[in-house]
């Protein structure tokens, strides 16, 4: 699975995700990537999210929506909400994976609970990095 989240110079947010699914999956099986609120989400008031990992677990937790709700209803920061959902909720149901997310101020978080996640980020200020583990 691959994805991107962005905040443009006018403060607009967007998210995109794309996947081939899982090796040897049954025909017809669909994971979280194309399900809005699970693997892909964007709302200018809170955050944009693209997820990767055990699709069934991300679907059952409505991961992206859960993070948005924590921010919108409890006033949590993106970091706090994303790390709680990936670090605790996902772990609690035996799921593994991660996500990239950006908030309306352009802050980026990339939590994951497995060995690594292919990821990268670039800011208008010039910061730029790619990472694996």
């Amino acid at each position, binding site marked *: *699975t*691959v*994805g*991107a*989240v*962005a*905040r*443009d*110079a*006018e403060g*607009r*947010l967007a998210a*995109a995700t*794309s*996947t*081939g*699914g*899982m*090796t*040897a*999956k*049954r*025909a*017809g*099986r*669909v994971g979280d*990537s*194309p*399900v*809005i609120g699970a693997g*892909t*989400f*964007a*709302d*200018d*008031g809170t955050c*944009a999210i693209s997820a*990767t*990992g055990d699709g069934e677990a991300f679907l059952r937790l409505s991961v992206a929506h859960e993070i948005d709700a924590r921010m919108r209803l409890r006033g949590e920061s993106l970091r706090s909400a994303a790390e709680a959902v990936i670090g605790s909720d996902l772990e609690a149901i035996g799921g593994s994976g991660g*996500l*990239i*997310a*950006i908030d309306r101020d*352009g*802050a980026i978080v*990339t939590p994951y609970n497995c*060995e*690594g*996640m*292919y*990821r*990268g*980020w*670039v*800011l*208008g*200020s010039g910061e730029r990095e*790619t990472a*694996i*583990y």
Partner: protein
Amino acid sequence: SGYSLAIHGGAGVLPRERMTAEREAATHAALGRVLSAGEAVLSGGGSALDAVTEAVAALEDEPLFNAGRGAVFTRDGKHEMDAAVMVGRDRSAGAVAGICGPRNPVRLARAVMERTSHVLMIGEGALGIARDAGLAFEDDAYFFTQERWDSLQETLRMEQSGELDDDPARRHG
């Protein structure tokens, strides 16, 4: 300039002990190319939607990652791809599932958002939107990579022999 862009190529990373220096360098180089594709939009004043569309299309074009031409195989040796886009301004969204043919499934997800009143479309109906939108199609050979084929054979063999492990690198490509 106030813009920010993040990308991911999936959580199915190769375990450290199997990661070679060449593979690691190739992966960082691919991620760097993708960041450049997305940043070229943002630094030119383009929209977040255009930036994520171009970044994910670039990721789909990289055979290293499990999407587009690097997509993993189903147990029947075929490809079924899914994609989605969403815009924060008004929560408009487009998504496709279970498709194979369009070179960039993310562009089809965006076509669903921009050319229909729907959010999620599957199968032949979704492919019809791709044709109407004039999106590029590829044949099965374009989506074939030996590494993914080998991974499928290994997974099926392990299932047969009852030794299937939980290796995310293999499962998630």
